[in-house]
C-alpha cells in the first residue's frame, strides 16, 4: 500500500492528542476552582477527574494509534459530553458561590 501523501491518519491522531490536552487543561482549571474547599466542590472535582479519566481511556487508541485503526465507538459522543460536563460543573460551582 502506498503511503498517503497527506498523512491523514497521523494528522487525525495528533488532533485527538491536542484535544485531550485541551481537556486536561480544562480539568486542571476545574480542580483549581474546586480547591476553594467546600465538600460540594470536592464532589465537583471528583466528577471532573472521573470524566477526564474515562475520556482518556476510551480515546487512548485513537490518540496513540495503538491497535487497529478504529478506536472505541463511544469516542466522539463521550469526548463531547465530557467537555459539556466540565462546563456544567463550572456553572454549578459559580451558582453555588452566589449563595
Amino acid at each position, binding site marked *: 500500500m502506498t503511503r*498517503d501523501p*497527506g498523512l*491523514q*491518519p497521523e*494528522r*487525525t491522531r495528533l*488532533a*485527538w492528542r*491536542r*484535544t485531550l490536552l*485541551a*481537556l486536561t*487543561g*480544562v480539568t486542571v*482549571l*476545574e480542580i*483549581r*476552582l474546586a480547591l476553594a474547599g467546600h465538600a460540594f466542590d470536592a464532589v465537583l472535582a471528583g466528577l471532573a477527574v472521573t470524566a477526564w479519566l474515562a475520556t482518556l481511556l476510551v480515546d487512548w487508541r485513537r490518540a496513540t494509534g495503538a491497535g487497529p485503526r478504529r478506536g472505541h*465507538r*463511544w469516542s*466522539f*459522543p463521550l*469526548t*463531547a*459530553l465530557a*467537555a*459539556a460536563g*466540565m*462546563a*456544567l460543573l*463550572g*456553572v454549578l*460551582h*459559580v*451558582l453555588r*458561590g*452566589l449563595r
Partner: protein
Amino acid sequence: MGGVWEAIRRWFDPRELRSVGTTPDYRFSLANERTFLAWLRTGLALIAGGLAAAQFLPKLPLAHLREVISVALLLLGATVAVRAVDHWARTERAIRLNEELPASRFPAVLALIVAIGALLLVVAVLARGVG
C-alpha cells in the same frame, strides 16, 4: 423530544451510521473527524475561559458581572461541544449517502455572539474608565 433522544442514540451507536450508504474514501471521514475535534477544542477554549473568569477575575464593580461572564462562556462552550458531535454525525451520514453536506447557521451565530459579547465588555470597561 423524540428526535433529540434519537440523535443521542445515534451518536453512541455508529453501527447504524455505518449501515447507510457506502463507505467513503477514508480521508473524507478523517477530515470530518478532524473538523469535529477542531470544534471541540473551540468549545474547550470557551469553557477554559469561563473557568478562568470564575477564579482569576477580581469581583467586578457591576453586580455579578464576573459570574455572568463566566456562566455565559461555559454555556456557550457546552453548546459548541454538543453541537460538534451532532454536526459530525450528520456530516458523516451525508458523506456516506453522497448527499449535500448539512448547512449550518451555527458558525455565524457563534461569531455574532462572541463579537457582541466582546463589544459589551468594551463598553463596560470604557464606562468604568470614564465614571
